[in-house]
């Protein structure tokens, strides 16, 4: 007796999964994407492009995206950005408010209706200003992991990755530097998933721009010295996958936290709470700028 949520009237097609929803729907009944994106894009008369920020749980996707959006809103670099709708501001507001109070933002739930979505009109200034409408969702790492392990577990992930005009793959550089293999395997899995979706021939390589961002550089400052070298040395499976199947890939390092402390009472059972003592932004804008240049 699983219900269906067939709309009473055909109305608006979801931009992400292309399922029809009623005009009143706030979220898509199929994939939970906010229908405001569709309404805003119709109002703008533009077709937004989608940039996906993917990575393992707790790698820092929410913090990265929150700061990126806030930096864009503050006209960092050559960028000018206009959020379309209050929902687009919620993520950056949450991230900025938490970090300003030296807290990490709450974990992103797997339930897609609770994800943050941002729809921004972005201009890269220059001799020939470039305007792009971008949609960027803040996906839960666990949902990504479940989808790439068992495709179609979360249809919204599949739709998002299918539609992405560019991908930012975030990897925990601190873990990789410590010799953990999990970041390498996760990256390999997600690129393999994307490659399978692309379904290219043996000698064809994926052209969608993919920025590999080594996060949490504050744990491992050396990562900033030579990001590709770091990947080749510490994430060799990923490196080889990129070389074999991805034509348009670049490597970056990024960091948000300048110094990390830990609040602990010293009791064995006490949860040690990481405290971002201050921010020191490095490398947030560069991978995004590279993606924009490729679009």
């Amino acid at each position: 007796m699983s219900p269906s949520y067939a709309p009473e009237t055909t109305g608006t097609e979801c931009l992400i999964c292309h399922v029809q929803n009623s005009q009143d729907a706030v979220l898509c009944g199929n994939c939970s994407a906010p229908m405001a994106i569709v309404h805003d894009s119709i109002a703008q008369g533009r077709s937004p492009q989608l940039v996906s920020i993917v990575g393992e749980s707790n790698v820092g996707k929410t913090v990265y995206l929150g700061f990126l959006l806030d930096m864009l809103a503050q006209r960092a670099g050559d960028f000018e950005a206009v959020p379309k709708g209050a929902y687009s501001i919620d993520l950056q507001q949450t991230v900025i408010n938490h970090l300003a109070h030296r807290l990490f933002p709450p974990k992103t739930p797997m339930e897609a209706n609770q994800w943050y979505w941002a729809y921004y009109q972005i201009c890269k200034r220059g001799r020939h200003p470039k305007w792009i409408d971008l949609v960027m969702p803040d996906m839960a790492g666990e949902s990504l992991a479940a989808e790439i392990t068992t495709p179609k577990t979360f249809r919204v992930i599949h739709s998002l990755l299918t539609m992405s005009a560019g991908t930012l793959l975030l990897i925990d550089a601190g873990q990789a530097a410590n010799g953990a293999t999990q970041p390498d395997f996760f990256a390999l899995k997600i690129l393999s998933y994307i490659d399978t979706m692309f379904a290219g021939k043996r000698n064809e390589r994926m052209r969608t721009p993919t920025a590999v961002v080594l996060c949490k550089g504050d744990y491992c400052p050396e990562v900033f010295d030579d990001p590709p070298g770091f990947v080749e040395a510490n994430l060799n499976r990923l490196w080889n996958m990129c070389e074999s199947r991805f034509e348009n890939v670049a490597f970056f390092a990024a960091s948000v936290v300048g110094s990390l402390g830990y609040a602990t009472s010293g009791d064995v059972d006490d949860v040690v709470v990481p405290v971002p003592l201050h921010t020191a932004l490095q490398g947030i804008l560069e991978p995004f700028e590279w993606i924009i240049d490729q679009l």
Partner: protein
Amino acid sequence: MDYRSALNRAIRPSARPIDVSRGESSTVQTAEFPGIAWAEHAGQASGVVTCEQAVFTSAPSPMGAGYRIVSASPGLKADERTEITRRSPSHNGLCSRQIDAVGMMAYVLPSGRYCISHSHYAGAEHTARGGQRVYTHAIVIDTDAYRQAGANPVRLHAGLRSCTHTIDLSRRHFDPLATIDVPIMRPALRPSRLSGERLGQFVQLLAATMGERSWIVVGLSQSVSLLEGLVDVIPLSARAALSLSVGVSYTLTRQVRLAFLEGDCREAQRATRGHDVRWWQPGDGQLIDWEDGAEWLAVVRDYAAAGRISRISQIAERLVAPTPAPTLNRLARLLRDLDRVERADEQLLAELHEKYASAPALSTEEGEFIAQIQSRVAARFAEISERNQSRDREGAY
């Protein structure tokens, strides 16, 4: 108000007197549904059912961190794992933010087996990021075993609660789980009679469950106490496909037929706007109708009011094959006629005799009802005849 404490109060009125001055309800009819205990089920175990099990929560391991099935019994199938992953609540995923909040989900898996899960908060996540970690213990039951165990997910959930366990999440490696023997609880005490508001709620919820739409029910502390009894009157065939959640935050993608929410429902309201999901708050005046099965509903209402709901339960348990609304309505008419037999005069008995002398039975159950009616009509004729004869004899004397 935390629904669990409200329920406990409803179940155990002696635990703390109701304080009307604090806005607490003084109309909880504890005597009507004393048995359905969310925290403590009043029924006794009558046996066990062996189930597959899985634990879905957030814990670090060599295979990755975050929410996933961290351990499961070997008999759990791949598509079942996927469905449990898709449906289980993740971070902060319960309606209440109180640390002792609990949630329940029940749904059919793609394999046809039935899943019942119990969720609770399990402290902060290992990353210590904000929000509360949710720990879900899910059991998966074979279809036959589910039916043999009463096919009542609320009661099976009570059994699961009595034997649930929390694995040590501080470890980085989790051994596979074995199957688990879940106690089959006997039905809690049934109400002797339902009346007024409670009777209305009961029938409304039944209409919501039997209809085609999805419903969100707000006011969990009152409504959940009807759930166990409610499921008992749903035809067994429909119970096998029932999907419901209690105390778990709402998302469209969970695809539950009946969701009981509590507390701040704004997110659910946002999610359901423009979709074919109805909201019902007991006492809000909105009537849930199920026109297709109106006659069946009317019979259930009358039986519940008369304290004879167990009769409906007995019938429901026998409805193994799919039972569409017209079939239920026919059964309702048969049930009414069977009742009428008992107080019928000779003329009515003659009409019933004529009506059912060659009435076609569209199902085994209908056939049995018709046979019962025929038998009772004959018996009643005999009774009346004997009574008339004895009256004649008395008159002759």
